[in-house]
């Protein structure tokens, strides 16, 4: 395994709501190695996006706050770092791509402007040199005719092209870690596949680590080395991607796998997980998944469940992890 680039340990994030300070991310730990892709998977509201934003310390404050834990990048603690040192890291060593390219690019500036801006910020180069670099990265993300497209505005791009431009912007300073928050979710399926191909080939060429946040396990299988599954603000399972798909160790992971459409299996009903995830201010006692879990016993509602280490970097948060024989993806 590669040396850890990013180590998150026991992260806790809280938001101030009508119900007081509510913990939306609780005791989350994971690591991403150089050149490795970690998938962070969960339903909306599971805390995966908040977790990814916390790494960059971009959660809105107020109402959010990081309540505890540690985030280390190349061994250096990021929590408590002064703002200007964080700013020097953002967009330079750690870059981010967001879900909605329509709204995450500024409509009032050209694509070239927005890419050049990050280069000028971190490399201190002239406008002209920044433009040369912008052209380079636009070419890198395979935007056709970059010379002409560099002066276009975001609204003049298609969804897929905009997301490529957003990736180009993230890559402009050769980051060591790329955080991608559902970068393909808003795209058509065919375009989605192209963007994923692009990300995979870019990673092979540039060797950066990727933290890939998604709700889509299919995408994870396509791209990731390891997977961390989150539910209701906590990690429920971590495994490498083959192990996870072959033999999930948490009932929630099994549910996600069963809910995944399989190619070539027409007419088979998709098994949806019954119920809905709990609101952060009314977390159930005991295992947070037990109200929806088909394997739940009375004891599951009683005591909190710890993560069980299963060896070879695997772990799962289930009382019955050693009893259950869960179904993987076929």
């Amino acid at each position, binding site marked *: 395994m590669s040396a850890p680039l990013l180590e998150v340990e026991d992260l806790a994030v809280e938001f101030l709501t009508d119900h007081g300070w509510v913990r939306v991310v609780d005791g989350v730990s994971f690591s991403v190695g150089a050149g490795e892709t970690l998938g962070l998977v969960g339903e909306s509201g599971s805390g995966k996006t908040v977790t990814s934003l916390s790494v*960059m310390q971009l959660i809105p404050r107020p109402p959010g706050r990081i309540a505890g834990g540690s985030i280390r990048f190349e061994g250096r603690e990021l929590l408590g770092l002064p703002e200007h040192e964080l*700013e020097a890291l953002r*967009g330079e060593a750690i870059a981010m791509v967001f879900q909605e390219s329509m709204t995450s690019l500024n409509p009032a500036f050209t694509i070239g402007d927005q890419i050049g801006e990050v280069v000028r910020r971190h490399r201190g180069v002239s406008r002209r040199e920044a433009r040369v670099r912008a052209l380079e990265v636009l070419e890198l993300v395979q935007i056709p005719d970059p010379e002409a497209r560099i002066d276009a505005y975001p609204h003049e791009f298609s969804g897929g092209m905009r997301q490529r431009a957003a990736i180009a912007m993230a890559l402009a300073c050769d980051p060591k870690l790329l955080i991608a928050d559902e970068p393909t979710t808003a795209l058509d399926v065919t375009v989605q596949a192209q963007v994923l191909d692009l990300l995979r080939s870019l990673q092979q060429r540039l060797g950066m680590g990727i933290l890939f946040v998604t709700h889509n396990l299919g995408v994870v299988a396509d791209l990731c080395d390891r997977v961390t599954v989150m539910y209701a603000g906590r990690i429920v399972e971590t495994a490498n991607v083959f192990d996870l798909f072959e033999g999930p160790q948490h009932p929630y992971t099994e549910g996600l796998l069963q809910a995944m459409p399989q190619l070539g299996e027409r007419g088979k009903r998709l098994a949806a997980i019954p119920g809905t995830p709990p609101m952060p201010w009314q977390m159930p006692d005991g295992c947070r998944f037990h109200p929806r879990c088909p394997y739940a016993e009375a004891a599951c509602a009683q005591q909190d469940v710890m993560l069980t280490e299963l060896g070879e970097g695997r772990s799962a948060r289930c009382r019955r992890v050693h009893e259950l024989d869960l179904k993987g993806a076929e």
Partner: protein
Amino acid sequence: MLAFILQRLLALVPLLFIVSLLVFSLVLLIPGDPAYMLAGESATPEEIAEIRSDMGLDDPVLLQYARWTGGVLRGDLGTSLFSDQPVLEVLLERLPVTLSLAFAAILVSLLVSIPAGVIAGTRPGSLADRLVTLGASTGLAIPNFWLGLMLILVFAIWNGWLPATGYVPLTEHPGAWLRHILLPAITLGLSAAAILTRQLRGAMIDVMNQDYIRTARAKGLAWRGVVLKHGLKNAAIPMVTILGLQANYLLGGTVIVEQIFGMPGLGQLAVASVFTRDLPMIQGVVIMAVFVAVFVNLLVDISYGYFNPKVRPQ
């Protein structure tokens, strides 16, 4: 770009046509006999008859309108009933005063509203925000003539720092121009500043919650740069629209402010002409004011494209 401007100009034609109808019909609104009213109560029948024939009041209304519009299009706005000078000549003499007052007022309103709106809009709910919001509401409620008098009281009468009345052309003496225009411009600009501040605050709150602000932060830009570059340019879009509307109000406000500060501009002329019953002069002032307002709004339309690339003509 040229096509865009031409298209806008063409769109103005029906508007200006209706405006001309409205301005012309002011004469028709005069209760009783216009000639009698214009000549004044002590006029002899001969004088009334003279005005009647001068203004062609015996002709059919349509002919009167055609003659009047023809004159306006040729730049002939008639002759003042009071001073016998050509109306256009008087207007052009006074236009620079009003324009420099209006532009100085716009400048004041921007200088006040941009920092205030940005500070309030980036920290909604903070003490600074509440102070700005309260100040803006108060600024809207204070009558501008009263504000002008208070400024005269404090800065001219009590302290003697600035002159209370008068006007010096910019071309004659820039320093004196500034000293004379400062109080009137603040008087006129502050209510516009209040409206613009409210507008900018709202737009800024909206913009700062947009995803692209988060993107800009993720690029490593400092907060200040994010606000001033990525935030302000987008928040300026609705503000430009309001600024266009405000230009109209500011031109209207010159009527009062010029009166207070004794500035020989169009507004003062309009008020004086009410008392001298100089209808051609009033009509001229209105036409000129609409012309300026329409021109300013054209400029606003064009600048809109700079802030919002989506509406930029291809």
